[in-house]
């Protein structure tokens, strides 16, 4: 018996080893192709020349100086030959290599007295003469990673993230006194506004990835972001689900807060980036608009707690932080780092999270609200959620 099981184990190991065979065969085939690849290309004709397009990742404005961070997104090498500012050839220095391999980056430093608040364009011409031009809406001095800058972005994040969510949560006592019918309506409203946020984030992610060079972008990146957070939240909600298989009360409120928090991370990133790139004027109207827009997010978190959940003041504060505070690191990242790839992932992640929470809220409403999903209160609440987000969004 024992020798039999050893044999079986050995047999099992053999078949596990067999899994390596396709890998080894693939490596062999790839090396053979790479070795004789040229002749195959001859058979099907010549391949076109590379497009030689650089990816301008970041343009920074410093007193008397412009810094341009570029990455080579393509397989073939690119050599930086000439740099223009507003269609004029300018002297420049390179921090990094002149010839860039795939996904390699260099920073171009241009001594230049740029004009504050005016549009400006930077062009980088490769040795084959292909010019990549980056238009900047307004030249604004790039914030340095200073304590003041950090504080500034933190204040912005607090104002547009934490404060409105906390204000929205203050509706909780009133919600507790609402009839079950109306509570269902408010839950549906939560789902409606989260659907709106998901769609908004998804469209933002798709837009950002479309602007990325082919080598870095792709809808796959968006799907990766959406799927990761969706599945992560599904896992959490399954673990905290009650005996009836639905998440409710504080757990559901936490899920909603996480979904909104991820969205606010992306929102903070967008705000920080826009400020850093001079695309956005920091007006009081802008901040007020975001505050009104985000107050409804607090309402969304309050609704599940109102339906039989209990929460201490500390818990509520924690929920406000979960939902609102990510706007602060988002603004930091956007203001000081700016990465379009990160932006795509953040927004896609926010979309996935929001969608998952919509599903959870939907499940909850279907089981707990009087009349289920088909009731007029629920349908009206859902549509009202979308309408409220749309209308307050007009303020931004």
């Amino acid at each position, binding site marked *: 018996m024992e020798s039999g099981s050893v044999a079986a184990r050995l047999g099992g190991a053999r078949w596990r080893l067999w899994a390596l065979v396709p890998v080894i065969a693939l490596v062999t085939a790839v090396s053979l192709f790479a070795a004789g690849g040229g002749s195959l290309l001859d058979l099907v004709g010549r391949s076109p020349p590379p497009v030689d397009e650089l990816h301008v990742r970041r343009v920074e404005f410093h007193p008397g100086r412009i810094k341009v961070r570029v990455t080579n997104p393509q397989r073939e090498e690119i050599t930086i030959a000439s740099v223009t500012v507003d269609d*004029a050839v300018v*002297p420049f220095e390179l*921090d990094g290599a002149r010839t860039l391999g795939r996904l390699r980056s260099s920073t171009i430093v241009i001594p230049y*007295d740029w004009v504050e608040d005016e549009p400006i364009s930077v062009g980088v011409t490769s*040795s*084959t*003469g292909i*010019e990549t031009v980056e238009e900047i809406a307004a030249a604004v001095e790039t914030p340095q990673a200073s304590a003041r800058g950090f504080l500034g972005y933190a204040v912005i994040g607090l104002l547009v993230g934490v404060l409105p969510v906390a204000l929205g949560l203050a509706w909780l006592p009133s919600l507790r006194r609402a009839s079950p019918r109306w509570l269902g309506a408010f839950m549906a409203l939560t789902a409606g506004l989260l659907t709106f946020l998901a769609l908004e984030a998804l469209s933002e992610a798709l837009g950002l990835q479309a602007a990325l060079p082919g080598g870095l972008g792709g809808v796959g990146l968006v799907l990766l972001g959406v799927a990761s957070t969706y599945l992560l939240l599904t896992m959490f909600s399954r673990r905290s689900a009650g005996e009836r298989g639905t998440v409710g009360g504080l757990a559901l409120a936490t899920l909603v807060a996480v979904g909104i928090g991820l969205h606010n991370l992306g929102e903070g990133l967008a705000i920080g980036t826009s400020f850093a790139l001079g695309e956005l004027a920091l007006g009081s109207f802008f901040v007020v608009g975001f505050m009104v827009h985000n107050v409804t997010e607090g309402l969304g978190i309050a609704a599940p707690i109102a339906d039989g959940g209990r929460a201490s003041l500390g818990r509520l504060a924690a929920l406000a932080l979960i939902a609102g505070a990510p706007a602060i690191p988002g603004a930091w990242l956007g203001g000081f780092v700016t990465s379009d790839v990160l932006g795509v992932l953040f927004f896609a992640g926010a979309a996935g999270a929001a969608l998952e929470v919509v599903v959870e809220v939907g499940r909850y409403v279907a089981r707990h609200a009087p009349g289920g999903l088909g009731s007029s209160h629920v349908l009206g609440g859902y549509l009202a959620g979308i309408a409220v987000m749309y209308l307050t969004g007009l303020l931004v």
Partner: protein
Amino acid sequence: MSNSKVTRRQLLAGAAPVVAAGPLCTLAASPLLASDREATHLGHDHALAGHAAMIGETVPAPGEAHDLDQLLFPPQALPHDPGRVREYTLTAYDKQIEVARGVTFNAWTYNGTVPGPIIRATEDDILRVNFTNGGSHPHTIHFHGIHPGDMDGVFEIVQPGDSFSYEFPARPYGMQLYHCHATPLKKHIHKGLYGAFIIDPKEPRPPARELVMVMNGYDTDGDGENNFYTVNGRAFYYAKYPIKVKKGELVRIYLANLTEFDLINSLHLHGEFFRYYRTGSTDHFEYTDTVVQAQGERGILEIEFHNTGVFMFHAHQSEFAELGWMGFFDVR
């Protein structure tokens, strides 16, 4: 991300010694270009601002000094001798050339340069141009001037590998030009198939320091707009290697505009006026410091510098100037 932070810190340290140069947008020559300083000394000072940064060793111009001498200095004018045969051999071929520092352009050339070689004849010479097409596309040579219809380079398309001899009496005198007239015309011209064609008058022009300047542009990324502008084919070349002339000597410039895509080009000379003979075919001139030429237009400039020093010349379209069409006279 931590990686990029490190580079930024390194960059800050590395960039600290860089002295900020001024903007390139003012076209007035900097007072730093004092008239008694030598051009060769100017380039060594990295702290120079504005256009001063575009002179000497720091200028991003391709090539070495004297590279373009064949295109700048025309062959000697010969005395009037009706019926004398002037023979030139031109071969068209594809060649990758460096048009701005580090930037190559897949050009179509006559004899390997853009612009092509200078063709010169005296009025009533028999001009014979033996043309061979060694390129990858059909080409011709179309001369400006007076000649028979079958020597016009429009209908006599020369296929790759074929040859054709153009033969006609050279007239009228003036600054002419030649270019390929195969279709698509725009492509064949902007790829580089053109050059200067000087016909000297019966009565020789007064002796002078003679220069040829062909203004052109290069659309290196094929978007129908020029990325660089030059005289004689290389961006900023005469900013790096100023043209040396003597104070008081007669300087004669044969100027032609073969810029494609842009309707006009121009030449503006600093600190001096000149006589401008449109097409160079009459004695009429204008006394000015700026001339504008449409595509295919040309003329002759005669200058006597009143002062020594470094004098800029450039297209007065600021954009062209800052994309390579600028240079200096070093007047001793």
